């Protein structure tokens, strides 16, 4: 018998601590597949972030450097600039990347750092207990927006992929989702492109992945999966927002 699907080699065998139905596990798997596919495990150094993704270093059999909250793009810049031969990726949630770490991601992107960025947007602070994130949708109740996010009070959900796609230093920017098999296949392609962007030295490869957070949304796993199509995709449109092709090097 031949394997149709087996656990990627770059994942350790440690069980995920994520809640039932949380998409972090799927996204971890996509990243691990990309590491295996491009054969970069032995030269990968990741910068982990703070939030539910903080235990990344337990799940990937690679070298990982922990970063303070929001600072992974800066930590990764330090790693990559001093080790240009290594493959460096960061994995951040929306609170980490789009709130406390906004300056770091924008300037790493603008400098055209050859980094791969996996940005998990689940519209909520997960690990701290479901507080409002910069990506929380209008009307969405959270533990710090109990009456629902209201623009006069909290502003609008931030669209990071659209913003970053404007920057010259970004070689690839896409928003994908992993809520259906078809979209998962697109997401896998996008993660692979974000890897290739770094390997081809075309600047930052950025993938935003819409993700569910059943626990903090107060939903069962399948309801949470359906919310992605119903509420998130209409506000956060999927697609490739930027792709630097072939010979247009950075």
């Amino acid at each position, binding site marked *: *018998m*031949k*394997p*149709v*699907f*087996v*656990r*990627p080699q770059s*994942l350790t065998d440690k*069980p*995920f601590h*994520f*809640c*039932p*139905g*949380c*998409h*972090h*596990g*799927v996204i*971890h*798997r996509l990243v691990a597949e990309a590491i295996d596919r491009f054969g970069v495990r032995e030269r990968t150094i990741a910068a982990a972030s703070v939030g539910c993704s903080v235990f990344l270093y337990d799940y990937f059999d690679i070298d990982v450097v922990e970063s303070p909250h929001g600072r992974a793009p800066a930590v990764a810049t330090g790693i990559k600039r001093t080790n240009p031969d290594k493959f460096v990726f960061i994995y951040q949630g929306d609170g980490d990347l789009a709130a406390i770490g906004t300056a770091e991601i924008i300037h790493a992107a603008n400098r055209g750092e050859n980094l791969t960025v996996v940005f998990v947007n689940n519209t909520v602070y997960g690990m701290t207990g479901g507080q409002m994130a910069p990506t929380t949708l209008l009307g969405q109740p959270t533990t710090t927006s109990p009456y629902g996010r209201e623009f006069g009070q909290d502003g609008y959900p931030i669209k990071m992929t659209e913003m970053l796609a404007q920057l010259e230093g970004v070689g690839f920017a896409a928003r994908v989702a992993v809520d*259906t*098999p078809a979209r*998962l296949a697109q997401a896998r392609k996008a993660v692979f492109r974000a890897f290739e962007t770094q390997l081809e030295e075309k600047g930052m490869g950025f993938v935003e992945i819409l993700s569910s957070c*059943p626990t903090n949304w107060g939903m069962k*796993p*399948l309801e949470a*999966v359906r919310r992605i199509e119903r509420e998130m995709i209409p506000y956060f449109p999927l697609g490739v927002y930027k792709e630097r092709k072939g010979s247009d090097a950075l």
Partner: protein
Amino acid sequence: MPKLVIRDDRCKGCSICVEFCPKDCLEITDRLNPLGYRPVGLRDPEACTGCAICARMCPEVVIEVWK
């Protein structure tokens, strides 16, 4: 016939795989696993085509598919 290996001791019973199985051959079982969840099981091995959609959608990466 394709072979499905489910590490059901690590399944959290989210049922995403059940939902997306195109042949409807998976089900959430009645038993409890060591984590306290009701894990998924293969209800209809005959119907399984080994498409691996279940494995790809599984957030815990605990399903393997061989053919």
